[in-house]
């Protein structure tokens, strides 16, 4: 059974979620961006250029790899990994930055800004900016600068200025605040490349569209490999872009289960987590209405996750909609469980996943044994673990 899905509406609403909740100075640039995006969305020349970049620069299509040994070990469903870790710069983030950079170029913008948590989006942005010869400033929470120092160095090598944000909780949400402040100040020449399916309209839809190459490829590759659609898709959810990119082309295939994995940190019950869909409620932050973590006074809560890329109190508004409608389900995985996922994939398949992606791996370890051997799970391996080597070594008491 399939149902037509055409979200968002023309003002960026996914039911009660999404929208354009920004200060007046940002309305004109957002309208300008939306106009450009609508124009190029179906422009043959733009699409051809994007496709060529994705193929020759990013290295797409990324493989859909049958993790046979791991599947056998877990004793249930056949697990296929969508290898976004093999993309240039090491994660799915580049699919989106390549697309937005092409838009920036067409809009005549000379300066690029971005926020980053794990640094993967920052690196992917600095990379496309270097390639186009554009000035690039990346905002990163001071806490994340410390725990992802390798990526900070990569961004600097690529010619970007990395600004350590000292306000608030000094993590991803504060980096986003600071990037928005930069944008209102420099609206004329600056393009803000948001790294996930959040922010004001049109970002959630636009980033989803750029990332949906993941799901389009996966669908075709799965049909080729197994002759049918997968039974379940699993992806980690920070802001939700790798998950949305995988899910979107399958939304109308209602027999395919969509499962988003949030970061439970020390455990949802402890309050030290980053799982707004599992444990938050609707509110407004960073330009859209969505599930958020906040206290009784509406002040945004501090979050916790071992992975900087999931350490965010909100989530893209389309996920809020998919949750409420029941089309997708959202689960959570603690730091410790994520570490189990990290080691399992590393030892079983010789693939070291990013700590973000490890959350999806950990849930797959729970899910696969409950399914039949003739069933399939596609797990999004959103990034590789190189950036996390210092964090992991430190946990093991090893000085690198």
């Amino acid at each position, binding site marked *: 059974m399939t149902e037509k899905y055409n979200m968002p509406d023309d003002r960026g609403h996914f039911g009660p979620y999404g929208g354009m*909740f920004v200060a007046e100075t940002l309305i004109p*640039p957002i309208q300008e961006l939306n106009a450009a995006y609508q124009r190029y969305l179906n422009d043959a020349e733009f699409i051809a250029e994007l496709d060529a970049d994705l193929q020759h620069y990013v290295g797409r299509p990324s493989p859909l790899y049958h993790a046979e040994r791991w599947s056998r070990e877990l004793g249930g469903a056949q697990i296929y990994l969508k290898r976004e870790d093999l993309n240039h710069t090491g994660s799915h983030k580049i699919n989106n930055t390549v697309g937005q950079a092409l838009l920036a170029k067409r809009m005549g913008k000379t300066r690029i800004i971005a926020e980053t948590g794990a640094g993967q989006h920052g690196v992917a942005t600095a990379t496309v900016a270097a390639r186009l010869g554009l000035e690039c400033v990346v905002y990163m929470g001071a806490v994340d600068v410390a725990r992802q120092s390798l990526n900070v160095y990569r961004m600097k090598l690529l010619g970007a200025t990395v600004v350590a944000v000292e306000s608030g909780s000094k993590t991803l949400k504060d980096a986003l605040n600071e990037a928005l402040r930069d944008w209102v*100040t420099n*609206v004329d020449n600056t393009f803000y490349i948001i790294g996930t399916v959040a922010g004001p309209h049109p970002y959630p839809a636009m980033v989803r569209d750029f990332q949906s190459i993941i799901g389009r490829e996966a669908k075709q590759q799965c049909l080729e490999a197994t002759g049918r659609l997968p039974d379940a898709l699993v992806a980690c959810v920070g802001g939700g872009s790798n998950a949305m990119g995988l899910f979107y082309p399958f939304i109308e295939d209602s027999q395919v289960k969509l499962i988003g994995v949030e970061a439970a940190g020390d455990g949802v019950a402890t309050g030290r987590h980053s799982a707004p869909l599992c444990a938050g409620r609707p*509110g407004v932050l960073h330009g859209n209405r969505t599930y958020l973590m*906040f206290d009784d006074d*509406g*002040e*945004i809560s501090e979050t916790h996750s071992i992975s900087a890329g999931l350490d965010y109190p909100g989530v893209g508004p389309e996920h809020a909609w998919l949750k409420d409608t029941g089309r997708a389900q959202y689960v959570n995985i603690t730091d410790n469980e994520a570490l189990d996922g990290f080691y399992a994939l590393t030892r079983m398949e010789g693939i070291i996943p990013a700590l973000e992606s490890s959350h999806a791996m950990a849930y797959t370890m729970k899910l696969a044994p409950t399914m039949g051997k003739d069933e399939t799970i596609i797990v999004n391996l959103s990034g590789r673990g190189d950036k996390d080597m210092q964090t992991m070594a430190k946990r093991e008491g090893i000085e690198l």
Partner: protein
Amino acid sequence: MSRLAATFEELAKTGRKALIPFITAGDPNPDFTVPMMHAMVDAGVDVIELGVPFSDPMADGPVIQRASERALAHKMSLKRTLATAMEFRKTNQHTPLVLMGYLNPIEAMGYEDFANAAQRAEVDGILTVDLPPEEGQEYRELLKARGIDSIFLLAPNSSEERIKKIDAIGSGYIYYVSLKGVTGAGHLNVADVEDKLRQIKTHSRLPVGIGFGVKDAETAKTVADLGDGVVVGSALISKIEANLDDLARAKHEICHLLASMRQAMDEGGQQ
């Protein structure tokens, strides 16, 4: 007639401009705010904007961000800001009071509960920074039904179409953000503000308060000549920040700065 409309009408009769200070409720501590508000009235201000502290003040520069952080450290909240407003009203029935803040605390309280509480506190206007005209219809109607003005921002890059839209649904006054940037930023370009004000006045009947970049008596006077009111925030809050160990002095310096602005504006504003 609302307190805001009456105030601007009264000022217009004498050719004077509104002096509108902004401070954050609960900065640097909750006991400071109400006496500070009364002192500002004594120093000659016409309208008070009271900032509601928020954990993620995206449109604010570092000075007001830190004011929010100081207030939140004392557990200041939207509820307690409303209580502050109510206490101010006990002994001041005439000075219009505008709450300025972000949407999420209001969402958390619920639109209707908030509108009722604001009415009980005799708040005159609400400026919700991250709620543009497109998104807030239900909310605006709840406020309107209780006689509370919805105040909107306009910016240097706002189109004619947006000016008309905001004129149609806004009331009280328009807050013109004189430069592209966050609060407390740089310096404003007088010729640009003048041009934009001409455009706004062509399409709107509302009084216009001009803010961002007003630092001293001289800028206040310059800006007063261009619109109907002058909003000053970061320059006042900087006085608090510079005197955290001597709040009596902070209060004195704020009043002194406001009085000097009042004087300069009254000299410059009479055409």
